[in-house]
């Protein structure tokens, strides 16, 4: 069984949790500041939402007027 260490996860994470000593804590800290599991998901969602916004804006300011 791999060694564990305890980290503070703050009020959102309800206190503390055990993680592997080899875990990339920087990456965990980074992800703790986002609602997404990975950078890739975050970027893809932002891109899709922006394209949807652009389409709606084009529809109401150019194509339907």
């Amino acid at each position: 069984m791999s060694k564990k260490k305890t980290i503070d996860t703050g009020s959102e994470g309800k206190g503390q949790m055990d993680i592997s000593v080899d875990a990339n804590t920087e990456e965990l800290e980074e992800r703790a500041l986002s609602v997404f599991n990975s950078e890739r998901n975050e970027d893809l969602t932002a891109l899709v939402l922006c394209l949807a916004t652009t389409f709606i804006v084009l529809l109401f300011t150019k194509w339907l007027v």
Partner: protein
Amino acid sequence: MTRTQENMPVFIMSGILLIYGFIAKSGVLLPMMKYLSTHKTMDLQVTMCLLLAGIGLAGAIINSFKEKGTSIFDRFFLQPLGGIIFLLVLAMFIRWYAEPMVKIWSKALAPTLGFAIYKVLNLNYVVLGLLVGVVVTNTIGIPKFAGPGVKCARFVLKMGVIMLGARYSFAELAKLGVYSVWLIGIFVLGTVFLVLWLGKIFKQPKTMTGVLSAGMGVCGVSATVAVAPVVKAKSEEMAYTIGTILSFGIICMFVFPTIGKMAGMNPVQFGAWAGTGILNSAQVAAAALAFDAVDIKTLKVAEIFNITRVLFLPIIVLVLATWFGKESGQKLTFKTVVIDKFPIFILGFLLLFGMSSAGLFSPPQHYKGKFIDVSYNDRTQVTDDEWITLDSALKEGKITGLSETQMAAVNDLHKQRQIAGNFDERDNKAVFDKTGRARMTQLEGILAADKAKQIKLDGDVKGVIKHAVKQVHKKSKTVTTLTDCMIWFFAFGLIGLGMQITKKAIFQAGSWPLIIGGISGIVKATLSFFVVLWLVKDVVLN
């Protein structure tokens, strides 16, 4: 019951938005909105408030009865809803009340102080948003209900960067000669490497140096946000970079016009220098206008140099991704840098830039949605009364002191009733447009000469020329709306970003980023001053 109590803040905020929406709709707030100059956003205020109130109430009701889950709907809508509404309410307050109030107060204080505080400190929604976020988190703290919502801030900032692409077009870049693009590119890359080198000498964290180099090299907020994920920069490092850039810009706004005048720079040289040396777009415009409020060439050149820097963003992202990977001891291949490390949202920026350049939002030659249309069009003509005014002024010989080309432009305006090319050349669009634009430039020159009191123009004739020039300046509604979306995304994101910055983090960063930023900024400004004086003579625009 407990669940309803948990959702009480969302119910209260939604209720307030609903009441505000209905009050705004009734028109009671119109006098105050007019005082704040926000009356044009009245419909938007009503729509946003009612829509948000509806979504908030629906979400709070569902949250009150539904067990907490881990589905996508729970994670991305129900849980962050309270925080999203909280940040949006703050963004609305900043954009519709705080920013206009700051402008009014600083205008009122300007005669006493001798300058407008909001212009000097650049107190727009960017700075106010960050400040509000920092104040909230360091005083009352992030409310518990808003925690998950605040985590959406970076994601929304990325949406802002993607939207930024819609404002620019390749045609603007093509206006600059290859030689000017090289000049800008060398300064952008040079500054990035200088900051990275200084960071190494002063032993600063790679994350801080990386994000600061992009901010100092390219420009302010957008570059900082774009590069932060690549170099894994923390929120406080992003905020520190934005703060450094804006502080440096404040000094530049005063120093640049004074030095430019002392060195006897011409409008084009000063525009090129300000556009290269000053980082923030608003501060570039302020310095250009302070140097020469009459000749719009200064502002135009400065703005074009400034936006060309923004278009170097993807290249800088690639450079920093490679640097950060190497510094972290990773083996990098072309594939890892270009495909794995290159942020997808920067591709989004490029995609929107491509769509904008292809003319999907506005004619391809647009600049921030503005374009010149000298084609034959009834709506571009001057009115009948205006034509009679011009006709009698020409017959009575009231228009004097103009150059031959300026007079020819006025005569053509009289003949065609609008600014346009020659009728015989209407089938050749390029030639027709070129002639029309040249006539517009001549008419703008007449107005500038009158403003500078070089000639004395009759008030009515001035009005006709002004109207004719205004008629050919068009603005794309699509780009304006997309820019509005971008501003909202940035406002939301920056408040959230501010909320992730604690006092402890600010003190930990110390004053090194400011020192590194200051050194690199001064080096860049000094070098670009000599290069511009040496290389840029007069015409830089094709």
